[in-house]
């Protein structure tokens, strides 16, 4: 078994670079999507993915299971994201809305005009409040509702307990629900009741 401190040979480094290149080519866009949902900003998202990939592959000799790489990269992404928050908390501003390359408010592909309008309405309310959530809550929301991870899987990735995931999710949903209500848009609560 090779320890993490053992010198890495050039051939090993070459193999790592080859693996990294193939992995990036295959999974860049998927990782970028998650990073964008976390950061709300394209350049920060790209920086986050690059940082997480570099950290992961520097630790590559310790990862024996190639199938686990993506999970490891995502975990590094989330922990890096939260550490950025601690360092940059004072100078970070919330992103107002998700914009595409042309600066338009994003609408769902294939949506009808009515659906399109509704989606833009929902998004115009949801997205700014999502961006203002504490990073732990935002990461939890992305992992639970975009990555479709269970509470246990989310806890494992965030390195916290399932109870923390539950409470973070609850608080995030409560915040977003309140934002929807403040905006006049109605939602269905945990009990299935409609509130406006």
């Amino acid at each position, binding site marked *: *078994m090779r*320890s993490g*401190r053992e010198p890495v040979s050039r051939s090993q480094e070459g193999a*790592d670079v080859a693996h*990294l*290149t193939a992995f*990036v*080519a295959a999974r*860049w*866009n*998927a990782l*970028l*999507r*998650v990073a*964008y*949902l976390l950061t709300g900003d394209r350049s920060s*998202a*790209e920086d986050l993915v*690059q940082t997480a*990939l*570099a*950290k992961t*592959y*520097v630790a590559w000799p310790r990862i*024996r*299971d190639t199938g*686990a790489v993506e999970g490891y990269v995502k975990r590094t992404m989330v922990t890096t994201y939260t550490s950025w928050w601690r360092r940059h908390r004072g100078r970070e501003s919330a992103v107002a809305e*998700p914009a*595409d*390359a042309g600066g338009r408010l*994003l*609408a*769902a*592909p*294939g949506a*009808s005009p009515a659906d399109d309008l509704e*989606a833009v309405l*929902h*998004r115009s309310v*949801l*997205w700014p409040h999502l961006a203002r959530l504490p990073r732990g809550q935002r990461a939890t*929301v992305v992992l639970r*509702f*975009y990555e*479709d991870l*269970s*509470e*246990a*899987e989310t*806890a494992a990735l965030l390195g916290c307990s*399932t109870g923390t995931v539950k409470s973070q999710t609850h608080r995030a*949903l409560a915040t*977003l629900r309140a934002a*929807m209500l403040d905006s006049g848009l*109605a*939602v*269905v*609560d945990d009990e*299935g009741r*409609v509130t406006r």
Partner: protein
Amino acid sequence: MSLTRDADGVPDLELLLRSELGDVADAVGTTAGPVPVRAVVERYRTVRRRRRAKVAGAALCAVIAAVVVVSSSVPATRTEDDGPVTRPTTPQPRPSVRSSTVSSDPEVRAVLARLAELPTSTDSPMTSPESDGAERVFSPDGSRYAIYRQFGEPSAADVRYELQIRTASDDSLVAKIAGDESTAPIGWVGDHVVVGEPGANGGQLPFVWKPGDRDYTRVGGIPNGEEMLRIHGDRLLLVRFSGSKRCDAPLLDARIVTVRADRIYRLWEGCTQWNMAPMSPDGQAVVSAKSLFGAIDPKTRVYRGADAPDGPPTKTWDVAVTFTWAPDSRSYEVRFPLVVPGGDTFGTTIRCTLSDGRCVRLTGAS
């Protein structure tokens, strides 16, 4: 994605979030530029150089510190008023144990001990079968098949979807019904086609359609919070995502039921982990998350396994395992993200065979 709405057309917040996050992410993907492979590799090399410099610096500091300690160590002296002589103790190197083998959780330790006891095999773990992407879902007698058809581009305003039944011999159309983007057939129960609507927790809500009927019928007897994870023949694996009664978190209540027309009848109840897929491909065996070293016939309740059906470990632990059934349903493999002391792989995989209830620890390369 079509949102579940109440009678007033109001969307559910969790579903709305799934939809919105998915749409935004899709748009990010479609507007992404070229993959910056070179930039990533350069970043990696920079981090690696910094890491090496840091390790080298730390090693130099350690050498200097050792020299200082050695040169400053003097024989202990004492006066009559002093207490017993003491010397500064040098930390002893700890045994090198991989972090994933260290746990204070008694259940995890029990699992590790049990894994270490199992006989070994040099076989390699099987790979998870890829979805064959089959579009045609054949009826039990093979005479007909259900197929899901989309007309028009997904982005077109007039896109429509159909669930069609065709004969296997000449592909002629037998019956059809309008659907939406999630109305893909997933199985047959007698002469009913089963379709699944995405549930709020990642599972599906099963509906049946009898060719010729005017609408789908939701399978009854499945309460809110319970969703379908698998269907094999007429057997459904249902998991309860909220209000679990039998199983402590993070385990989930699970049950296997048979479907007759649009009703269900209970066969087995137990616990599962999310993503575990404990039902065999033929639906004739199931593995409870409370006892991963054996499988039970959900109908006869006959248990075959390397341990007693109620033990030993994995009662309530939250270590997520990877679970794979052989396509022939004769064996299954469980990959524990735990390293048996002395093992040299990341995680430990066991294979259990139903015919003799024997489990072995696989030591071959994956």
